[in-house]
């Protein structure tokens, strides 16, 4: 049973003008228990929505139009799949009126029928696991730093004993050193406990550190899905290439950073044909008319007319 199977997933949101497609025909999978799949893309590409769908946390103004998400063979909406999610803004994601201990212990009280005493003891163990002192158990979220809050969220996620973890840009708001610590913590959880993870981010450089497989998203579609090394060595999709080339590099002299001209399209206003075509340096006539289909490449695929 695959830890994660996303097949032809299409998700819509209700906006002013009606239902708008935000994720289109996403195909993804995780094959090993200690694997990290990274989803990379700019803001607005649909990666957070995809993450929410995998976690089964779509709000009421969103709906899955077709496709499915299965975690260890179980549909995420059935309620039997155990997926935990780490959110980007740790401050607002914690209840300001409850202590850290309360918020971790309630998981044990609720799901594992522990007494308050036992639950708090377990909570302290979780705090230790994420590198926080036991004294944090009585602190309130506003008393912690950004990195500490993020670790509390991680402790909560561990306490849930999930089958899969979705992490949505957990380190974006943190400084570089804290970023590294949190990243390493997450990696150790995956490898150490054997819990697969979907890691969502816009930072391709960061992904190089922890991902095993990478899915590049653009305008609601997965445009490239490869193993990490393969992607970095030989990026196929023009968007992936552009992302990579816009990364600052120490070894190459550049007078200015290369950016991709144009703006990503807004849901509801996707261009005809290939959605990247307006910004693609190698686009040709077919690109503006026909949507490219998936072309398998090794263990992954790419969505581009150049390779069909």
């Amino acid at each position, binding site marked *: 049973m695959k830890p994660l199977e996303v097949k032809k997933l299409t998700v819509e949101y209700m906006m002013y003008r009606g239902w708008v497609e935000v994720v289109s025909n996403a195909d993804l999978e995780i094959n090993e228990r200690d694997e990290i799949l990274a989803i990379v893309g700019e803001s607005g590409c649909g990666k957070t929505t995809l993450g929410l769908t995998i976690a089964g946390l779509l709000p009421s103004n969103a709906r899955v139009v077709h496709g499915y998400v299965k975690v260890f063979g179980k549909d995420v909406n059935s309620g039997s799949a155990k997926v935990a999610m780490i*959110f980007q803004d740790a401050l607002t994601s914690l209840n300001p009126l409850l202590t850290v201990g309360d918020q971790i212990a309630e998981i044990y009280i609720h799901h594992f029928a522990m007494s308050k005493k036992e639950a708090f003891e377990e909570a302290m163990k979780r705090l230790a696991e994420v590198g926080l002192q036991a004294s944090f158990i009585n602190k309130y979220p506003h008393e912690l730093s950004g990195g500490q809050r993020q670790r509390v*969220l991680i402790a909560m996620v561990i306490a849930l004993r999930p089958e899969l973890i979705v992490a949505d840009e957990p380190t974006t708001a943190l400084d570089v050193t804290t970023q590294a610590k949190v990243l390493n913590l997450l990696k150790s959880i995956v490898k150490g406990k054997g819990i697969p993870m979907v890691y969502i981010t816009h930072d391709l450089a960061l992904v190089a550190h922890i991902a095993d497989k990478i899915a590049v998203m653009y305008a609601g579609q997965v445009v490239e899905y490869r193993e990490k090394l393969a992607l970095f060595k030989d990026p196929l999709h023009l968007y992936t290439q552009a992302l990579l080339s816009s990364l600052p590099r120490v070894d190459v002299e550049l007078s200015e950073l290369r950016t991709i001209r144009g703006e990503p399209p807004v849901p509801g206003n996707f261009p005809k044909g290939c959605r990247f075509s307006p910004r693609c340096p190698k686009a040709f006539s077919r690109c503006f008319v026909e949507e490219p289909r998936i072309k398998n490449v090794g263990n992954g695929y790419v969505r581009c007319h150049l390779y069909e």
Partner: protein
Amino acid sequence: MAKNIFQYIFYRILQSIFSIFSAIVIVFILSRVLPGNPAVAILGPKATQENIERVTREWGLDKSYLEQFMIYISRLLRGDLGDSYIMGYSVSRLIAERLPASFELVIVAFIISLVLGISLGILAARKHETKVDLILTSLSVLSFSFPALLLGVLLLLFFGISLGLPVGGRIDPKYSIRIYTGFILLDTLLNGNLSAFLDAFMRIIPPALTLAIPLAGLLLKLSRNSVLEVMTQDFVRTAKMKKLSEKVIMYRHVLRNALLPIITIAGLYFAVLVTGDIVVETIFAWPGLGRLIWEAVTLRDYMVIQGSVLVVSIIYIAVNAVVDILYLYIDPRIRG
């Protein structure tokens, strides 16, 4: 701004003292702005030469305003609000006698409105955008618009005439009850007199409802809006992610955060209750402070009017201060 909680409490109390002082000054100024001889105004029909001289001496009415104010304050600090020649008792005594009745009424009304308003507000929030929500929201605007003048009359007619229940006054005079607390509902129970309790209960319901319904409407709207806002916040999503039960999410996470800000405007509620209370007590012949004010106005008893206004103001200022300080303890964000 204050750096720690004790500093804040100190400043807050200081602020209250300033407010109380302001109230005293205003009441004093008003008492001396009366046209003609203040002594004559105070005495009303009892304005004999002898009484005028006595009052003038008592309050120093022949002296400068500053001296008069000093006398006024010094008497106030001793708890002496003056004497009502018209009604024949000291003002402090009159007020002290009537206060428990008003307290009881206001507290019962407040409890009813809290329970009614908040529970319906939560319901409206959960059934957001459905017919139930629409009905409840309309009800809240409607009930908030009910002036005590209409609602009181309606309930008086309904309970008194249509249902034939006893209305008016706190209890049938035929019962003799020993007073322990001043709260008739409690005292009747403490006396073991169940029929007296029921009688008192039936009499307190119509006036309490008249006060409670507008306030409940307001609370409905406030709690509904607060709950809706909190429901969209991130930590509620976290609670859903933790797959906690609906009940736990609602009570532990949503309500706790939603109802907290509603406490802060307790002062507003008090003001709303006070405004309605005088009319309600008059309509239902409820022997409280509100009715005393009405009697005093009818008799042109300025001493009682001013004393009552002052006492109510002090209570109002105190309630506001207590709520503000209490809030500090409840909200951990400020405590730290």
